């Protein structure tokens, strides 16, 4: 089916659901506010759903409860200060938020980080990915009623966070990326430890595959639920694993040319043809494995040398505009930085993946049942800070 046909079908289904009301039993729909305080939205997203029995006729996400005005705040911060803010956009993928902004600033200044710094950036980027997605792998279980997997996720994620802490001093908000490089070099013995942790991460992935993904009830609950066809996914601007689970072979790590180390390693971009909730879980699971393998390869080939290029003490970015987007754990994250030659950005537009990813909800939630609403929300995987920023 083409997109227009999908839309028509969805519209007809909605009309039919509306028409059923007040026909047989004089029933009326019930409007239910899922959120802003609800266990499934892990934050303050509010979804207004209109129900016929347990079937959703109409749904609308209401966001903005956690709006912190980061785009405006960047205008009154200097470039090095901005990383502190943007760490908190996607708070689980902490370091990954810093990289595209710093790259944009470096673009404007014409500075390039030395190779060792580039590789380390890539390593931390992928660690942020593991820290972010491993939580999803467990949390999906909680949303479907299995309470045990999430504890394994927290347990093994802790090792990755400890690694980050050993280097940066911050478990959640490393604030480590600098214009022209990174703040400090690795501590002694860190590389061996990191290799051990990557083994753990793989083990964790195997465990999740056995415990959750192989579970028959899990498959029943996720297969065929919340199917997003590729055409619709592109139309709503879905990115990251949500797009790849719909069969769109699109990964900025491979498709774009960055001064980062992805071009030096072998990795596969996993896609899944189904586009349902199960596919999204599957793709993310493979991506976690892939991230572990990327980190292992980078650790093996880590170049020596400086970690900081020569930059002036007081950073002034020349006038100009730069757009850098990267493949963050949640999807495509981009910064459009406009500089007028001052100490801070004149304007900074932040493109966050979750905002676009949840924009598909009104289309996706039509006609599903309340339990499936939760499955779909969990499988789309958004971070509230990433929606509202």
């Amino acid at each position: 089916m083409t997109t227009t046909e999908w839309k028509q079908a969805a519209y007809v289904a909605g009309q039919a659901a509306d028409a059923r009301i007040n026909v047989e039993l004089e029933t009326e729909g019930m409007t239910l506010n899922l959120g802003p305080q609800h266990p499934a939205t892990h934050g303050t997203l509010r979804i207004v759903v209109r129900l016929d029995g347990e079937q959703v006729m109409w749904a609308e996400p209401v966001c903005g409860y956690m709006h912190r005005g980061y785009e405006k705040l960047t205008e009154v911060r200097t470039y090095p200060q901005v990383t502190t803010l943007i760490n908190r956009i996607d708070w689980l993928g902490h370091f990954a938020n810093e990289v595209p902004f710093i790259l944009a600033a470096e673009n404007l200044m014409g500075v390039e980080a030395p190779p060792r710094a580039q590789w380390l950036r890539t390593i931390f980027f992928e660690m942020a990915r593991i820290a972010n997605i491993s939580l999803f792998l467990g949390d999906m279980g909680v949303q479907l009623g299995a309470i045990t997997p999430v504890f394994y996720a927290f347990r093994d994620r802790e090792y990755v966070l400890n690694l980050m802490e050993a280097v940066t001093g911050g478990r959640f908000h490393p604030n480590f990326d600098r214009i022209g490089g990174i703040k400090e070099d690795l501590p002694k013995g860190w590389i061996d430890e990191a290799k051990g942790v990557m083994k753990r991460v793989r083990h964790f992935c195997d465990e999740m595959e056995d415990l959750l993904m192989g579970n028959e009830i899990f498959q029943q609950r996720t297969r065929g639920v919340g199917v997003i066809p590729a055409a619709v996914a592109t139309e709503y601007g879905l990115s990251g694993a949500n797009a790849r689970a719909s069969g769109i072979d699109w990964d900025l790590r491979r498709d774009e040319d960055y001064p980062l180390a992805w071009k030096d390693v072998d990795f596969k971009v996993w896609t899944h043809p189904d586009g349902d909730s199960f596919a999204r879980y599957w793709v993310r699971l493979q991506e976690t494995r892939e991230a572990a393998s990327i980190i292992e390869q980078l650790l093996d080939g880590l170049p020596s040398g400086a970690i900081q290029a020569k930059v002036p003490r007081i950073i002034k970015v020349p006038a100009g505009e730069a757009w850098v987007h990267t493949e963050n754990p949640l999807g495509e994250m981009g910064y459009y930085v406009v500089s007028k030659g001052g100490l801070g950005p004149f304007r900074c537009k932040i493109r966050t993946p979750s905002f676009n990813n949840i924009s598909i909800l009104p289309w996706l939630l039509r006609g599903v049942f309340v339990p499936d609403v939760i499955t779909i929300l969990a499988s789309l995987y958004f971070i509230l800070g990433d929606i509202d920023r």
Partner: protein
Amino acid sequence: MLALDLTAYWAVTVLKVAVVLALIPAGALILGYVFLLKMMSFMQSRLGPMEAGPGGVLQLVADGVKFLQKEDIFPDRADRRVFALAPVVVLMSTFLLYLVIPAGPRLVVQDLDTGVIFALAVSSISVIGVLMAGWASANKYALIGALRAAGQLIAYELPLVLAVVGVAMQAGTFSLQGIVKAQANGEIFGFGAIGNPFLFTQFIGFILFIVSAQAELSQTPFDMPVAESELVAGFMTEYTGFRFLFFFMGEFGTAFALAAIGATLFLGGWYLPGVHGGLADVVGPLVLGAKIMLVAFLIFWVRFSYPRLREDQLQALAWKFLIPLSLVNILATGVLKVVVK
């Protein structure tokens, strides 16, 4: 001098009521501590409560005291009387369940001829309490949860009863005491040393019973009525304080009672090979307790490891799989009973 005649009708009745009233919180505490607090923690690589008492044994007692101290809150638009009555109805159903479970040759509150049927019948009363709670809360989540609970419990009463029918046919009686005796006196191909626990002959029945009991208790994978990631806490959403405590005791007390019925029907109840007469009255409760823990372990093991089904999938499982299977089981039992005899 005041002579206390303990065999008088009123004295016996008061004693029995007191014992059952003490058993409900005791059973709830044991299951809550051993499985909910400790086993779940160990499965999830954590220790669970450790501070209150040695190994945290008093944690639930402390929680109970905390619940009693809480403010008694009624939602603004709640139907106050129904709201207050609902937890009592749920607990009453649990209370009635304990009446027919034998813990020894003479240790039973009332040995009814139709004990099993009575037990399964009164266990459904809790649905009324759940519906009352959901409706009276004036909360949409509670309402959805209560309606789910009603649909689910109706669907699973049937396989539960049908699973028991096989046992009753083999034992030739509906009395729980009679079923225990039938297992104690039975023999497996002429070998009678351990009796004949119906677990072996009624294995399908046992599986059906465990699955249906799981649904009856609304535990994962059948916990849609309280599904906390969807409905916050289902029909219990608006309850706090001692009313919530009632629901909690009802849930775990019923789990204890259903595990006891499962142990009685399939594992031989209080019977321990080689123990007869007066001694059985002393050993019986301990033996039954051990068997209850075995059955409860199965129930909670599944609860802590499985995701939950969707409401329609649950109905499909009940009507398309469990009920036909239990009918086949009954048929097979009937045929074998005729052939073997």
